[in-house]
């Protein structure tokens, strides 16, 4: 007998409620699945891409049937949301077979793609099997900047074509970008482009080293003052940061710091699965993994990830009692990638968080031996920069070079000298 709906509920309400309930019981509500690390682009900032023709990588990827088996196990474990990402998802010719299987299982699926391999046939297929959301990364507004970043001639036009193919079919598209030294001057133009299309746009400036230990992305990472300036240029962004800080900052109680190593949702609300079937706490964390080819999702989630998630800190650092930690993004995965140590504070993140907080005139209580706090070695420099940003930060972006007179003492470019431990070198 068919059941008639008794009412309607907003997706926001449905999602928030379900996440709360699932998290309380440690149900894996979501999974991020990296289909392949292979990609047709050669982006200078990327943390994990490999060439399309990398046969070793291709041979090591999970087969379609392995993906389907894992999807069965995820569904049985209660998972609802799946993110497919890469590399590039369409680098695999059988991606739509995997995707269709996942759609038939009932997952709510988000696709991350650079768009350059999307054809009209693929777009038509996605109309028939509609994803929950698609995100395309824009690397620049002009072909010159876009292709300077991607390293592939013609990629700009292919990306634009994909955007129009998807929008013409009214597919749920979001545009986003990474703000790095190569394209920072076009972030505003990209936003305007997205606005003209009626599409949401967001950007991210927080680059991590590559998971193969290369620090190359850090060479194009913006400096902390550049990142905070981009915040200040956007009133909506400033308002969101203030709201965020009001809600999440200042939660550390005196003498009551958490002894948990992981304080995110990894291993509680979700997990990541890499192209070879290794399950980990998140896409950036490669320190420990569970091989889904040898075991099953239930065992990996209930035993392995539970143990990883339960790890305790081994020492108190300046991060332990930091009251602006929510604004920082420091986490074990970032610690591993930048310093080879999940607990070692990442200087770059600390610098950005403190500068952002001061530029927004937020309270930054003392929290231990921190060079960016009062009495610390970099405090004076930081406060000068914060003052300059506070006065001039909302002015539109000019060609800020390293010798800009507004920020003469913040041209120090720190590159992480530690290594990650993902390959054991």
């Amino acid at each position, binding site marked *: 007998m068919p*059941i*008639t*709906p*008794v009412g*309607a*509920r*907003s*997706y*926001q309400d*449905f*999602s928030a409620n379900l*996440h709360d309930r699932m*998290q309380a019981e440690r149900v894996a*509500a*979501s*999974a*991020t699945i990296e289909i392949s690390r292979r990609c047709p682009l050669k982006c200078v900032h990327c943390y994990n891409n490999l060439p399309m023709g990398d046969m070793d990588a291709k041979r090591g990827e999970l087969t379609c049937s392995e993906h389907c088996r894992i999807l069965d196990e995820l569904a049985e474990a209660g998972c*609802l*949301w*799946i*993110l497919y990402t890469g590399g590039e998802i369409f680098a695999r010719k059988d991606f739509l077979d995997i995707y269709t299987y996942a759609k038939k299982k009932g997952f*709510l699926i*988000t696709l*991350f793609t650079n768009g350059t391999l999307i054809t009209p046939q693929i777009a038509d297929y996605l109309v028939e099997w509609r994803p929950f*959301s698609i*995100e395309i990364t824009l690397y620049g507004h002009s072909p010159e900047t876009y292709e300077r970043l991607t390293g592939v001639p013609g990629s700009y036009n292919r990306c634009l074509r994909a955007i129009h193919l998807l929008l013409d079919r009214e597919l*749920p598209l979001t545009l*986003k970008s990474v703000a790095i030294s190569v394209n920072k001057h076009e972030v505003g133009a990209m936003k305007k482009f997205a606005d003209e299309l009626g599409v*949401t746009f*967001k*950007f*991210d*400036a*927080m680059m991590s080293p590559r998971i193969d230990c290369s620090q190359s992305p850090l060479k194009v990472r913006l400096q902390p003052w550049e990142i905070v300036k981009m*915040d200040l240029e*956007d009133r*909506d*962004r*400033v308002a*969101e*940061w203030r*709201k*965020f800080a009001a809600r999440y900052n200042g*939660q550390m109680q005196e003498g009551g710091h958490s002894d948990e190593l992981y*304080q*995110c*949702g*990894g291993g*509680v*609300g*979700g997990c*990541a699965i890499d192209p070879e079937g290794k399950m980990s706490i*998140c*896409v*950036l964390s490669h320190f420990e993994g569970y091989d889904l080819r040898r075991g099953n999702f239930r065992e990996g989630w209930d035993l392995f990830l539970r143990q990883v998630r339960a790890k305790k800190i081994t020492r108190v650092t300046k991060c332990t009692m930091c009251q602006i*930690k*929510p*604004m920082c*993004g420091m986490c074990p*995965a970032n610690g591993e990638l930048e310093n080879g140590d999940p607990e070692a504070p990442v200087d770059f993140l600390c610098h950005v968080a403190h500068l952002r907080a001061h530029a927004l005139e937020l309270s930054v209580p003392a929290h231990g031996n921190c060079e960016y706090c009062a009495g610390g070695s970099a405090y004076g420099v930081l406060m000068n920069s914060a003052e300059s940003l506070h006065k001039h930060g909302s002015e539109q972006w000019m060609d800020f070079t390293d010798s800009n007179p507004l920020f003469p003492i913040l041209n120090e470019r720190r590159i992480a000298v530690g290594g990650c431990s993902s390959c054991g070198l």
Partner: protein
Amino acid sequence: MSGKLDPNLPLKRAYKKPEMERVSLRPDEAVLGHCKSMAAAGPGGSSTCMPIGSCFTQGS
């Protein structure tokens, strides 16, 4: 049969007839964000590994 409840048996929940609610899948209403988009659009857009105990996929 004594008629008394066995204290070892779990109490049953009262039966509630299943009801179906319709939910429109609107990604713009997604409450949580992505690990791969750290701090994108500031914290309110699609923030990531937030210290509220959750690291979520986009649009969830």
